[in-house]
């Protein structure tokens, strides 16, 4: 398989990044609602941890579709840049946290040398993104001042959220897209066509 990026890979990555950048911004609103519900118990910021996986999803979707090195990292960074362009209240520092998350997601694919895109690797990618992003937020958000059990709870919730929302739903979304046929020019679409031909020759 060709490892270098074609222009159409890059534009696809950009479009996915931009679309999900907007979705990411929308989920800040969802997070705020959860925070508002949990705040009376003093557990406000846990609201964000519950849905944290959504902020890794474009890495998994783009990597699963394009299947080349660096795609997970770049798509996530583009999404973060989009959030800043549109006017996120988290500001340019968000680009940095997008890069950290993208790097985390990329690790799972790098471990398998960008050859394996089975569901468990996609879920693993969501987990590794959560795993890598947590220390960064620990530092920036001053989690150091919290009791240890609370930090552990937040960490575990984030890992689960990464696995389920980013890994599992990311895969489902990409599969749904591939079904429409628009991805036939990319590795994911080719895999589906190959599978289809194989099953039809069995008749």
């Amino acid at each position, binding site marked *: 398989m060709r490892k270098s990026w074609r222009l159409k890979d890059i534009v696809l990555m950009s479009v996915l990044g931009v679309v999900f950048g907007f979705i990411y911004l929308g989920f800040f609103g969802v997070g705020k609602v959860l925070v508002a519900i949990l705040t009376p118990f003093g557990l406000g910021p846990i609201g964000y941890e519950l849905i944290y996986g959504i902020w890794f999803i474009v890495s998994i979707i783009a990597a699963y579709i394009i299947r080349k090195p660096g795609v997970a990292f770049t798509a996530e960074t583009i999404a973060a840049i989009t959030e800043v*362009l549109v006017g996120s209240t988290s500001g340019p520092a968000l680009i940095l946290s997008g890069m950290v998350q993208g790097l985390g997601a990329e690790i799972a694919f790098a471990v398998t040398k960008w050859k394996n895109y089975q569901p468990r690797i996609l879920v693993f990618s969501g987990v590794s993104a959560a795993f890598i992003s947590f220390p960064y937020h620990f530092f920036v958000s001053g989690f150091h001042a919290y009791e240890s059990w609370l930090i552990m709870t937040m960490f575990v919730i984030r890992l689960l959220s990464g696995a389920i929302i980013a890994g599992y739903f990311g895969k489902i979304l990409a599969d749904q897209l591939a079904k429409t046929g628009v991805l036939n020019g990319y590795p994911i679409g080719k895999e589906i066509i190959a599978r289809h031909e194989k099953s039809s020759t069995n008749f």
Partner: protein
Amino acid sequence: MIHSLNPTMKAITIIMPAILLSFSFDIITPAIMFIYILILTFFFSKLNIKKWLFYFIPMSFFALGLAWMTMLYTDGRYATGPIIFSFLSFDIRMGSIIVSISLALRSLCFIGLSLLFAFTTDPTKFMLSLMQQARLSPKLTYGILAGYRFVPTFRHELDMLKKAHRIRGFGHAKGWRNLVEQMKQYFIPLLAGAIRKAERVAIAMESKGFTGSKERTYYTVMKIKFTDYLFLSIMLIILIIAYYVSYRLGTLNIFGHRITP
């Protein structure tokens, strides 16, 4: 004026205190930074104060929520001093109050800096500047700008999809439970349309001779000027002053370690 600064340099200047402020767990350091950010916002940028408050006030509630959580669940290293008040089964100590005010002020600083950037920066210029100053590849830059351009068309397409569904007597899935159904109905076709367009744009770009080479000329040339360095230096100087004042007052606290003169 902050509007005319180079976007990449502005981004760096704004990220810098956001990271360097993360070491402090006292009140004085972030408070001084926050005052400086407010001065920048109100006196050195031409932004609409009403619009600014519209974003700032809801965001500051998050800062308060954060402070509240910190106060209740403060780690032993910070929860020192006399008990100030009790809430349910929680005893709130002086140290807890200090560290929670510190974290709240820190996030207010982040919010202030972010709004300052968002309200004074043109998105296209930011991308062009990332390409010309931060060496982002032209392929990625123009790809992102092309993707960004699709967004306004989404609303029009969503409208069309809805009408097409109605004409065919296909109901609109409502409510939280049908979220997955709604996603299939609208989100997948929208995204599929965007992907189709992305492919077309890529082919069009190549057919018109776009190679993505870095040795190209630019219609809009972005430059770094003296004022960009000035803005960066003053930001860093104020940050150093903030830490120094806190050190002199004996309140400086770096990751739970009191540092006094």
